[in-house]
């Protein structure tokens, strides 16, 4: 297993989204081969998105950083914390799952 605790500058989440994150976490995806789960919760710094990655695929730190930096730049996720359990998902799957997690977080009541 490889563990990474990363932080990326990101557009600040809207007030609604920030209060949602404090109210309830949202989980998306399953821990299965080639797949991952993403837990979305409230973070500390509204200018940054903190992301914790636990992955069974070792040695892909640079690719993780590239995919996650891209995600943080594309979405207003500043002030959120994402926690990931991964079993060797490809970068495309990771990217889609992150988008889905953020979407289901935003549409959660």
């Amino acid at each position, binding site marked *: *297993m490889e563990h990474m605790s990363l932080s990326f500058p990101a557009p600040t989440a809207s007030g609604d989204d920030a209060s949602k994150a404090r109210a309830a976490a949202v*989980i998306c995806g*399953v*821990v299965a081969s080639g797949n991952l*789960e993403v837990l979305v919760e409230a973070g500390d710094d509204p200018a940054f998105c903190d992301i914790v990655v636990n992955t069974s695929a070792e040695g892909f730190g640079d690719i993780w950083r590239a995919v996650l930096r891209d995600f943080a730049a594309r979405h207003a996720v500043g002030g959120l914390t994402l*926690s990931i*359990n991964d079993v060797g998902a490809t970068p495309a799957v990771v990217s889609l799952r992150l988008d889905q997690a953020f979407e289901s977080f935003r549409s959660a009541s």
Partner: protein
Amino acid sequence: MTARGISYYEATARTRVAALVDAGSFTEFCGAAERLTSPHLAALGAPVAFDDGVVAGSATLGRRPVLLAAQEGKFNGGAVGEVHGAKIRGLLDRACVERPAAVLLLVDSGGVRLHEANAGLIAISEIMRALLAARAAGVPVIALVGGSCGAFGGMGIVTRLCSAVVMSEEGRLSLSGPEVIETVKGVEEFDSRDRALVWRVTGGKLRRALGEAQLLVNDDVAAFREGVIGLLASPAAVAAEDGGLAQLRAEHAALADRATRFATARDGREIWRAQGFAAPERVPMLAADEFNRALAEAVGANGGAA
């Protein structure tokens, strides 16, 4: 929801729960944010899941209060570890206090999580004891089996301890899995790669025909929902039976009779033929309602002996 519905077989545990219960009524216990992950998997350097592969909580179904647990078959084959098992056991203990209309177990599991060995076995035995206590307290426990991992090993036993079992043909229920049987007894005994045979032997239609499942429904979460609502509406269908020793003896006699009657059967088709199905070879092609009609006709022609 689309016109095609949601395939129970394909859906994740969370999707099943959301579509099964009344919209928006689900409250999760020990949710993902609490991070009750498996210490055993962590010690082995294996991936963990924030919910340890089971979603537990309370909801309403047809406006009746229920407690439910849904296993995620895609995480380690839905196998039961220490935390996973404790969540199910706790839910059943809670049922003894809260007295909901029913506990629903959405079983999708190969059995005990081998990584956790004795802790997983103990968890299964605790679930069995808690399940029987809930039934004794008058709370029906209903198993739903329609996932890709079916209900095998310890979870196969747990399923058969329930007050009622709702299955789709895609769902499978047995003790040892086909690959285990082939490994131990040889391919002549059971060819685990013959998927049609595996489903004819362990799938929902044979289980329904033998009376081990009370309801066969199509592979659609909405069909499972309707099935469970129907069971909850007729208390007799899920009543806690307490016939004592006489009932136990009758059950043993029925099993002995079944073992004699189907002694030479090597395949679900032979059992359906012996039961009097008009076209046994076509049974796997039937939709749930066609199958249920054919079963009623066969049982009727047999004087009620399924």
